[in-house]
Structure formats: C-alpha cells, structure tokens
C-alpha cells in the first residue's frame, strides 16, 4: 500500500498488529487492523485492559522500542514503518499525551513555560519560533496564567493541560491522547475537545482513548471498539454506539443513545440511534427546542 500526497490519504495504517508485553502470556493487542485518514479524529473505546493504552503506545513507537515484548504485524505512521524506525524519528511525526500527566513532566524544568519548550529544544527549533509555539500552546490550552509556576506545584487538572500543551507545541502531524481529560472539570474537558477539533481542522490526525462517550460521540469521526486486545468494530459513533451487544464489551453508549434505545427512537434513514443531544433534538423534529436557545 503506497501513500503519496493526495487530498486524503492514510495517515495511519495498522495491519494485523499483535503485541505481548514481556513476562505476560496474554496478547495485549490481538490482530488489530485499521486505517485512518489525514485530519480524522478517532476515538478508542473499551473497558480497562482492552488494549487502549497499548495501542496508543504502538502508534507512537514506544511499543516495541521502549517496552520490548513480542510484536507482529505492521504499523505505518505517515508512511514510516514503526518497527524499523526509531522513537526519535517517530517523535517528529506523532506525539503522545500520557494518561498520567505526572509521567509527561520532564522534572528537569522549573517553569511551565520551559517545560513546554523542552521538546522544541530537543529538535533544534529557532528561539523565535520556540517562543511563538510555546505562547500558542499556552493560549490553546488556556494556561497562560500559570506559565511561571513550577510544573510540580500544579493541580492535577492544570498539569494535565500542561502535558497536552507540551505535546501540541511540537506540532505533530499525528496526535495520540490517552485519556487526556481524566482530571479535568467539565468545562475544561469540553475545551480540550474543542482544541482537538480545531487541530483536526488544521489537518492534524487525532487518536484519543477516552471513557467519556458523550464527548467522543460529539467530537470523533469514527470509533475503534476494543475488547481483550481484539478489534470488535471500527465505524461511525452512530453505528458503534447503536450495537446491541455493546454492554458485553464493558462499554455503555452515551446516555442519549441509551434513552433512545429504550424508547425505540431510531433514525429510520440510517437505522441507527442518536448519539448526541443535537441528534435527539433533530429526531424530535426540532420541537422542545427551548433549551438550545438559552
């Protein structure tokens, strides 16, 4: 499969990926295959230990280059094969936001500002551009007010935003986020998803593992459903969340979908249930729209 600069081509290709951590007997990823186009936003869902974090690590090369273990199949990131490449090369293409922001902090910088500049220093970006990119990241994440603080004096939610800022400052073509909003308040989570939306509109390809189904339903193009390392489905949020067997995989759909399923409110054209409040509203034919106006 050759990918070359068309309008939309496969930014990520995963082919029969299998992976097992050292000293374990179960495959963490078991025959996963999917392709993602440039600028798409993909949500990974599944219960804990389904393989979400492992897949995030595999897309950014930490599997197999940092974690070792048994590896089979192929992952291509913007045409580069992960297995035969290095983390250094991959880090210029794909950025990873860890699930624990603590893990992301370098512990070698005394201010949030320098922490965010760390990655840029390592790839030899000019001073002017560095300042421009750090300021842009601070602004995107709404954390200009804490730029002079020590990263380890921050609250969990603030640190999580610094972690995301430090990765987007690198302007990766592919951004992989592992539960990036787990410690954020509702509005801050919403803001992170809006930033993700904006970045995808700028052509950045995004993969995000999350438990917040309502957010994924609103902000992703397609959902990858994993269970015990296996790929169960890869389709639109409407199709995946309408599955009758979703519960068997330890996943519940957005509350809006649960309600519509119970009430038999199906979109007859697509044969799927609504996944967002807006879709419920349009299914009701725009009635009871008081709430939207306020």
């Amino acid at each position: 499969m050759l990918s070359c600069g068309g309008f939309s081509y496969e930014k990520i290709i995963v082919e029969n990926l299998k992976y097992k951590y050292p000293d374990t007997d179960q495959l963490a990823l078991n025959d996963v295959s999917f392709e993602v186009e440039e600028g798409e936003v993909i949500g990974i869902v599944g219960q804990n230990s389904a393989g979400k974090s492992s897949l995030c690590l595999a897309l950014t090369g930490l599997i197999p280059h940092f974690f070792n273990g048994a590896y089979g199949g192929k992952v291509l990131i913007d045409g580069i094969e992960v297995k035969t490449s290095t983390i250094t090369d991959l880090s210029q293409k794909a950025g990873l936001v860890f699930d624990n922001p603590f893990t992301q902090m370098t512990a070698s910088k005394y201010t949030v500002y320098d922490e965010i500049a760390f990655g840029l220093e390592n790839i030899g970006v000019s001073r002017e551009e560095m300042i421009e990119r750090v300021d842009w990241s601070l602004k995107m994440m709404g954390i200009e007010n804490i730029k002079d603080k020590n990263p380890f004096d921050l609250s969990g939610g603030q640190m999580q935003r610094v972690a995301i800022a430090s990765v987007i400052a690198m302007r990766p073509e592919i951004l992989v986020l592992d539960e990036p909003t787990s410690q954020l308040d509702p509005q801050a989570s919403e803001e992170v998803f809006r930033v993700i939306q904006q970045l995808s509109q700028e052509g950045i390809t995004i993969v995000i593992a999350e438990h917040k189904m309502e957010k994924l339903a609103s902000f992703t193009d397609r959902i990858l459903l994993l269970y015990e390392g296996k790929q169960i489905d890869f389709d639109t949020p409407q199709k995946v969340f309408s599955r009758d067997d979703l519960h068997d995989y330890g996943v519940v759909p957005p509350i809006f979908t649960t309600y519509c399923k119970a009430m038999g409110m199906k979109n007859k054209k697509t044969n799927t249930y609504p996944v967002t409040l807006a879709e419920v509203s349009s299914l009701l034919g725009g009635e009871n729209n008081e709430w939207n106006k306020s």
Partner: protein
Amino acid sequence: MNGIKVENISFSYTEGQPVLSNIDVHFRQESTAIIGQNGAGKTTFVKLLKGLLKPATGNIYVNGMNTQEYTVAQLAKQIGLVFQNPNDQIFKHTVIEEVMFGPKNIGQSTEEARQNSLLALEKIGIVHEADKNPYDLSLSDRKLVSIASILAMKPPIIIFDEPTMGQDYLGKERLKKIMKDLRAEGVLVLSIIHDMDFVAETFERTIVMNQGKIVLDGPTREVFSHEQLIRDVYLELPHATQLGKQLGLKQTFLTVDELINFNRKKQ
C-alpha cells in the same frame, strides 16, 4: 453519629491570596459530592478536613475532635482520604503490603490488617492482584489500590478525591456500589468529583465550590435544578438532566433510568 463541623474557616498558602474563605458547613450522614472547577479549592478543603492543613481562622471538628488540637496521626482513625494521584500514596512493593500499611499503623494486628485488606481488595475487584507490584498495574488499577488502602483502615469518615479518574463503566459501577454500601453502614462518605453523571447517580447531597467559597449546597436534585448557576461556575449539568430539559420536561432528572421510567408511564 459521625460528622464534620466546619466553622467559618479561611485558608491561604500565600499571604494575601486566600484559597478558601468563610466556609461554614456541617457534614452529617448524607453522602456528599463536592464539585467545582479546577482550582476552586476542593482539594485544599479536603486536606483541611483530614487535618493535613490547619485553617488560618475558624475551626474544624472531626467527630468532635478539633483538627487544630490533634495530629494527623491521631485523626487517622477517624478520617481517611484517598488522594487524587495514587502515586502520591503508594510506596510498597506489593499490593497487599501497600493496603496493609495503613491498618497496621492505626493499631490493627497483622492478621486483622491482612483480613481487612483482602476484604477491601475483594470489594474493589482487584484481589487477584494482591501479590503484584503496584507499579506494574495500570493507573486505573493503582487508583483502586489507593482506595482499598483506605477502606481497609475502616475509618468512620472517608473522603475520595476524584475516585472515578480513569475508571471504565464497570469500575464506576463498582465504586458506586461501594459508596452506597459504606453509606448504608453509617460511614460518612464525601467525594470531590468532576463526573456529573456519577454525582447525580450516587450522592444525596452536593456542594458547589467556586473561588474558595461554597456557592450552592443542597440535595443533589435541587442543586442540578440551578442550571444557570451551574454554568456560571464552569460546570455542566448531568447528561440525563440535559436530556430531560431537551425533552421539554420541567422536573430535574438525575439518571437516564428515571427519564425512561417517567416517559414509559406517560405513554
């Protein structure tokens, strides 16, 4: 009866920058959620309740003990706090040793501590990981270890800081059950939490904090009927509440089951 009485307290880390001001509240039996934007002062507040910090002015009584007059160790039998970041709490080489550490420190015998710890791990669903190194576990399981460590101490008051962080559907359901069981056993359960759906489904009382003050305090259903105020403090309504409004219903719904039952009866 277990309770925490907070009498008009104020607190600041740096002089002239109050983190909490004039907080006056009484926690009795109801399970209570503490919600608010990042930086509202929630974690500082629970650290004061636990006695890790002392108020600059005012007093806090934990089961009658003034936190100003007792050490954290003396208060530890009365009140347990599960930290937001499990890494702040975990330091032993195996899960079981980690969970037994607290119980042994408040005077449980080794055997008693082991039994309570295994029971707590069982309850939280990770007893099969008892002999593993906590740092070989995922972040979400490490969070469960930190919760089990507090449960095993059996304090009459337990405070959780973001217990659902990183938990999947089953993990959240299990936590919900644990909190409801604790409540039924007479344990006073308080929790800082950002997951509004979980708040709506689990807690009887909800306290909304903003900029170091309590701006709303009442039964959870009543609190979530104040839509504008909830938005003004950068929170959002539970999804079921949003859906109820979208459907044009006047009542405040807290769970999707309530909505389904209500509309089925109507049909």
